[in-house]
């Protein structure tokens, strides 16, 4: 792997191992995610790619029996340091899940503002600005500007997912984690989200987990291939997909297993 030397390092894992009880599901993984890039994590079901992602914002430790060893550095500081509050950390690292999860009791506006309100932002003017900016970034503003006070559940599945992206973007995180964000969407919705990835990497560092190799090839600058909890190979996407160094990577991307 050879990220451009000048790219400011944003997120890095060092010998990261994620466990459930005594069972390791991610083993000894070291990856570097340069700033303002999209990195894809691919691999067959159960390879630990989602668990790996959940270690990057300390969500894994909320699962029953979940804990980690190793280090995750955000701008050089270990996010697992004792002094660091995971709640504060999650405000710097946004996450979007497989299925859209709009808060059902809140309006479109309140959904987007939720992450700011919990941070103590109350000024109406400020919230209006941020909500509009986040919805524009998520390419949802034109469709929702006239019904911001309506329930978020009135939106289509694809719109709901973009709403969740807007909600994650509103607090201006530094990193955006996407956990199979298009798994429950139709092709049009999928295309929308993929285009967003290209747009958003100007502002954020993005890590996207996907089981769809074409998607990884389309959206990412770097790709990491996981198999049974091991990191098999990581590198520039065009290299990994055309000249993989590992036999198992080649077998997976050519569809011989997985």
């Amino acid at each position: 792997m050879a990220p451009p030397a000048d790219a400011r390092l944003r997120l890095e894992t060092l010998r990261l191992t994620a466990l459930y009880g005594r069972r390791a599901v991610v083993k000894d993984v070291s990856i570097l995610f340069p700033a303002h890039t999209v990195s894809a994590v691919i691999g067959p079901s159960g390879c630990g790619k989602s668990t790996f992602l959940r270690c990057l914002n300390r969500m894994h430790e909320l699962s029953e029996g979940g804990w980690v060893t190793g280090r995750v550095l955000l701008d050089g500081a270990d996010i697992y340091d004792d002094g660091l509050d995971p709640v504060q950390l999650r405000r710097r690292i946004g996450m979007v899940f497989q299925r859209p999860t709009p808060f059902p009791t809140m309006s479109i506006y309140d959904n987007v503002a939720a992450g700011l309100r919990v941070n103590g932002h109350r000024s109406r003017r400020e919230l209006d600005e941020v909500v509009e900016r986040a919805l524009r970034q998520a390419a949802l503003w034109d469709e929702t500007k006239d019904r911001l006070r309506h329930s978020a559940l009135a939106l289509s599945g694809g719109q709901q997912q973009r709403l969740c992206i807007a909600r994650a973007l509103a607090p201006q995180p530094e990193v955006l984690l996407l956990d199979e964000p298009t798994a429950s969407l139709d092709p049009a919705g999928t295309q929308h989200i993929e285009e967003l990835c290209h747009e958003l990497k100007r502002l954020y560092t993005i890590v996207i987990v996907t089981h769809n190799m074409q998607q990884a090839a389309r959206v990412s600058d770097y790709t990491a291939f996981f198999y049974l909890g091991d990191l098999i190979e990581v590198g520039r996407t065009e290299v990994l997909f055309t000249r993989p160094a590992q036999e198992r990577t080649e077998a997976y991307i050519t569809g011989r297993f997985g």
Partner: protein
Amino acid sequence: MTARGLRRHLTSGLMTGLVALLSFLAVVSLLLILGDLIAKGASSLDWNFFTQNPVPAGQSGGGVANAIVGTLIIVGLAALIGLPVGIGTGLYLAEYGSGRLAWVVRFVADVMNGTPSIVIGIFAWTWLVRPWHFSALAGGVSLAILMVPMIARTTEEMVRLVPHSLREAALALGYPRWRTSLRIVARTALAGIVTGCLVGVARIAGETAPLLFTALGNLNFSTSILQPMQTLSLQIFTYATGPFDEWHRLAWAAALVLMGLVLLLGVAARWAIRQRHGTAR
């Protein structure tokens, strides 16, 4: 049609008929009770019935104003004490209830749910009446004790229905755990919790046994919660078991009013459910 097809067809028809008959029986008995209440009680319902206090035995006239007000006060007291405790317990069980303590709490709640209400009454009598005296407060407390396990368990059920993904979404957004529980999870389950509370309140509104030796009953109008107080259920008990025709007439009318109150709560619960399904998908 083959022989087997015919048999299936007949069995299906028979079973459908049986189920229809059983539900018909359930509905008919309910309608009979309601009809009887209206037939025997409605004629006694007049302005005086709602505004007057009982008159001495033997005289005609009088009403149950004291019992209506007393029911509202004692049920209100019970709700004031029981709902926060019950909802809090339910939230705890659903959100943090995986340890041994939660197991014990859940077990105790289930046992208390099956405890006869008169036992709760004896308990309240021992601790609140014997060292002190009969009071509306003691009645309210005994009804609250009766209500807590019911509310706790329905709240738990309702909160558990909230998808786990919503909790994770809130946590990933930087919500602390307690705010996730209150702002996202409890809010999402709110309509269900409210419904559970209304049903719980309706259920205790007609309780008589624990009030017999806590609130005791009172022939006069009283709003002091430290004194004995009349309720509709106690009034019905006194009048129905008494020797006078006039009393029996009033008992029927009081029963109708009580039934109306409970029905009102039931309708409110239905309405709350409708609201839930209206907002959440």
